[in-house]
């Protein structure tokens, strides 16, 4: 299977790790196995949250790879969560089926919304996804018979597969880790397929892509449905870890933190979501005391990254290489 050229200096590689990556990835691998041997529940909890963040942010990166930015990603996490929970509790379906249900619901909503709004210019798309997220939150609040209203739904049972219950943190971490790895592997694989190349073409020059025979609208809808579906799946997982869902769990701040993680990690790299989640998930928990200062840091970091490293931290190795090459 032909792979994209990687020898051009400084060319953003479609996921193949450079020299820095070759050192870091094994480290990340070791770090990933670490939590299995820890006993402090707090650290395992952090590891779980990090893995759970990798998934929806990866989904968001797919959407971003076609040149659109969704400000409603949190709502799709919520749709997947509520869908899975309602299917599991009200219909009594097993976890795997409930998770699929949540994912499918998120996909269908994304298809309906995306088909219609992806024709809009980027700015309008942003505003509509923002409005849509609010709409979803209001509907969740206003439908107590289905969603439990403002109180949400509690007592969600642990995830379970073939009789094996993921009811301890260690066990759930295994599941979360597997899903995070699967999400990244999927994104990596996709980026190397012609479909993935089509995404990049649309992002970099939509007019040229269209003139080359690519149906830009269909490509963007496809990316949107995939990305929101992945978010929905993450929601299903999250619900079965935390044990309860409420409309406020999936509000605007979730959408915004996904965007912040993606931008700081790197919008154009498969590893961006991983880097963003790794850096930004543990920090709020570790610096609980200084929440506000911390958020000011994030805001400043975001602005600085946008200004000086717009392709995120993932582009740092390539940038350094280029600078070194010039000297």
């Amino acid at each position: 299977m032909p792979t994209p050229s990687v020898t051009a200096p400084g060319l953003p590689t479609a996921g193949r790790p450079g020299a820095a990556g070759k050192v870091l990835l094994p480290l990340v691998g070791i770090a990933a196995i670490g939590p299995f041997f820890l006993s402090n529940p707090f650290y395992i909890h952090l590891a779980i949250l990090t893995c759970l963040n990798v998934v929806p942010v990866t989904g968001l990166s797919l959407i971003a790879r076609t040149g659109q930015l969704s400000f409603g990603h949190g709502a799709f996490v919520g749709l997947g969560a509520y869908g899975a929970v309602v299917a599991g509790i009200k219909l009594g379906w097993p976890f795997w089926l409930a998770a699929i249900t949540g994912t499918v619901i998120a996909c269908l909503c994304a298809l309906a919304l995306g088909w219609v709004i992806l024709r809009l210019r980027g700015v309008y798309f942003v505003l509509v996804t923002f409005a849509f997220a609010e709409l979803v939150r209001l509907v969740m609040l206003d439908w107590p018979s289905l969603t439990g209203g403002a109180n949400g739904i509690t007592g969600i049972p642990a995830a379970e597969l073939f009789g094996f219950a993921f009811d301890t943190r260690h066990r759930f971490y295994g599941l979360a880790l597997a899903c995070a790895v699967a999400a990244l592997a999927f994104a990596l694989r996709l980026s190397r397929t012609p479909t993935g190349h089509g995404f990049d073409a649309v992002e970099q020059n939509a007019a040229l892509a269209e003139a080359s025979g690519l149906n830009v609208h269909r490509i963007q809808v496809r990316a949107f449905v995939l990305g929101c579906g992945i978010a929905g799946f993450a929601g299903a997982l999250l619900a079965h870890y935390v044990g309860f869902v409420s409309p406020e769990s999936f509000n605007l701040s979730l959408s915004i933190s996904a965007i912040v993680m993606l931008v700081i990690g790197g919008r154009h790299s498969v590893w961006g979501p991983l880097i963003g989640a790794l850096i930004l998930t543990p920090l709020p928990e570790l610096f609980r005391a200084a929440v506000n200062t911390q958020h000011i840091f994030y805001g400043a970091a975001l602005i600085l990254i946008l200004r000086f490293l717009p392709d995120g931290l993932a582009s740092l190795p390539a940038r350094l290489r280029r600078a070194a090459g010039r000297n």
Partner: protein
Amino acid sequence: MGALLRVENLSRTFGGLAALRNLSFEVEQGRIVGLIGPNGAGKTTAFNLISGTMRPSAGRIWFRDVDITGGPPSRVVALGLARTFQHTSIYPSASVRDNVYRGAIARLGTSMFDQLRGGAKTRAGLARVEAQVDEVLEIMGLEAQRDSLAGALSYGQQKRLGVAIGLATRPSLLLLDEPAAGLNPEESAEFGRLLRNVRERLDLTLLLVEHHMALVMDLCERIVVLVQGERIAEDTPAAISRDPAVIEAYLGAQEDDHARG
């Protein structure tokens, strides 16, 4: 089949302004046809209408006797009609090879699922695409720059890359929007030779918009002249260069432009 491309009474207005009025002409298979006219004559608008990027206000467009009026561009390309752009005609942050590759993948025709699992259909299709990309790079003289960043190429090389991306879609008819813009006379003569070579090797038909009169007169077998949205002449280069209406409306204006520098 009659002419490869047939344009009938094409019109397009923007607000109150008529950019194109009742344009009709034909392009025969295997020919190189030029579309010339002063700035604002409606040439790029005509391209936009033919390629399906824009809907005409009136008129029809026939390609291989199929009505392609209104596009969409992806359908038009699938039928074998491709275009290049005057500006922003490449993907600057991708390699040269990837640029051409992206032109070819629309015709791959395998589903995402087949691609994800590396199915046989995809592998066969990609082998085919690889060969096509190699051929296009060789024809356009860009093999040496294969792995270079497209944005780092020289201006002339980028223009060639733009054409290469168009060729990667395997068209029967290629619309070229000012392919020689910004090239000096020597470079543009070279480009002309390249285009003739392309036509031979790929059995192509070419329709180009150009301001480089030397290139147009040398390369094109027929010329259509547009002034203020209307066709004022269509003939061989020799006849066009002698046509008093054309000289007055356009070629004279050309000389003035050159004189003013």
